[in-house]
């Protein structure tokens, strides 16, 4: 072994002339691995990964957390998060999470799923897991399109929105209506905290992080299912630049999927 002193990334960073400790406002959380993200430039997945790992680091719960990765763009989530993780079959993440939390009730289990995974093929698992009130956090990334399979219609695709399988725009007479599954699960007695957030600008990123923090606190208190929808972008499949895609989120997605808490715990309401 080489006996030379190895400096941590943080030490090296702080030793650079331009940086002084008191000015440090941004660094990579230690719970995020060094693996390069495979996501397209401008995609929201990287931000949400970071938020989750920041919260896990700040709350010092790395040894308590078990994540469940989806099928879809985030299928490799376990490559980036330095925590124990299981990769689930398409749509089955909340069933897998149920299996984990039931045998390890003192751990903090979350699933990370896209709109196809959670609101199409996995609708039954999602509804029933929420209805049982499993003590898990469900992170639901809604970018209104199937990203991994390159841009087909999702259950959450907006009316009129063009995808590879709705090339003339989504016609609800043919394909049915967008499924607001977050509104649906908010009605179920098993869910404790249901909120819709976005990561299209700095302010919303901060709010999304707060929501994730709250959710993990509720899991620690064994309150029941926490469900965080995060309205996100898909520059590649929307065929937009990252900036344009965030503008689309702001102007088109958010009026349809308004941000805010859909279900707030009673004790917090007071």
């Amino acid at each position, binding site marked *: 072994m080489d006996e030379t002193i190895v400096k941590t990334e943080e030490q090296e960073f702080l030793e650079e002339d331009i940086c002084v400790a008191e000015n440090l406002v941004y660094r990579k959380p230690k719970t995020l691995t060094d693996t390069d993200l495979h996501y397209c430039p401008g995609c929201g997945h990287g931000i949400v990964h970071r938020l989750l790992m920041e919260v896990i680091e700040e709350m010092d719960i790395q*040894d308590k957390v078990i994540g469940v990765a989806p099928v879809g763009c985030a299928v490799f989530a376990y490559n980036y998060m330095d925590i124990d993780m299981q*990769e*689930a079959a398409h749509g089955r993440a909340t069933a897998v999470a149920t299996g984990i939390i039931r*045998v390890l009730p003192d751990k903090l289990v979350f699933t990370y799923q896209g709109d196809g995974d959670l609101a199409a093929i996995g609708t039954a698992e999602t509804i029933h897991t929420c209805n049982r009130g499993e003590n898990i956090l469900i992170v639901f990334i809604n970018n209104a399109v199937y990203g991994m399979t390159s841009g087909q219609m999702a259950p959450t695709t907006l009316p009129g929105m063009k995808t590879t399988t709705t090339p003339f725009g989504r016609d609800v007479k043919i394909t049915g209506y967008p499924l607001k599954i977050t509104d649906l699960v908010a009605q179920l007695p098993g869910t404790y905290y249901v909120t819709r957030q976005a990561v299209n600008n700095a302010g919303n990123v901060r709010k999304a992080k707060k929501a994730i923090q709250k959710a993990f606190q509720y899991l620690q208190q064994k309150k029941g299912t926490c469900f965080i929808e995060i309205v996100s972008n898909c520059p590649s499949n929307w065929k937009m630049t990252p900036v344009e895609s965030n503008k689309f989120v702001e102007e088109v997605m958010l009026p349809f999927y308004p941000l805010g808490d859909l279900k707030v715990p009673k004790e917090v309401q007071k």
Partner: protein
Amino acid sequence: MKGNEALAEAAIRAGCDAYFGYPITPQSEVLEYLSREAYNRTGMVVLQAESEVASINMIYGAAGAGKRAMTSSSSPGISLMQEGISYIAAAELPCLIVNVNRGGPGLGTIQPSQGDYFQATKGGGHGDYKLIVLAPSSVQEMADFVRLGFDLADKYRNPVMILADGAIGQMMEKVELFEQQPKGGTIPKPWATTGKTKDRERNIITSLHIDPKIMEQINLRLQAKYREIEEKEVRYESYMIDDAEYILTGYGLGARICKKVVEIGREKGYKLGLIRPITLFPFPKKAYADLATKIKGILDVEMNSGQMVEDVRLSVEGKVRVEFYGRMGGIIPTPEEVLEHFEKTFLKGE
């Protein structure tokens, strides 16, 4: 005890940590029995899932968390579980899956059948994988194979299936139960996802390997494991084969019928013997191959259209005549009709 109840009781005693399942005839007693007996005795988790699809994925989660997990179902339900079973085999998670066969295809009938042999032994889901398949032929074995199944699953990090049929699940026989075992088994599972501690790297349970070179290596490793299982875990029972001229063969309830045929055939002066595979995978190829040059014929009896008979024929490599007799749709063959078929086929040369 009823077969299904003996199996459920054995699950508690084998130190099972969690059962996830969905009701389907003829095995619903497993979920019912565990719902009233398990939690209060050992703290075993018992949960009725919303579907077979959900229940097998709950097994995936619990097994990945390092616990002894089990599900049970019957034929149409097992078909729904095949997606999850493929993932579990690929992720090398130990667990126990019980299939109490009913007649198919489709919704079929609730009567006993052995129509799922191919599905159980040849890989019912996508990809190249194998389950270790145990075929009980008595209520006693319904209980014993639960403990054996969990032990084999833990040893090889592989799903194990108990392939029974509706008759074995529903019949009542005396059964001697083993003592309560420690929960979770005794084999350490350092690979399980239990929360990353500072003293180890993170544990990942996955079946995804995009790079074909890595995927092939994973497949080769799985196949090497299956070969090792074939070498070390073959189990079968033989009965009166030493002087036998003809061998009857079958598994589960089929083997019990064959045993009776051997007995009544011997009374008539026919030199009959029996081979009963206990493990359907690994299949006892050598037991058949060793007999092939010493006997005049094999009659395979199953409650299907002829599934295991293909493995029997492969085992003897054409060195001896192999015939088949089967009934389907929930009909159980009688020893008399099997003996008549034997006489017609082998003695009268029809």
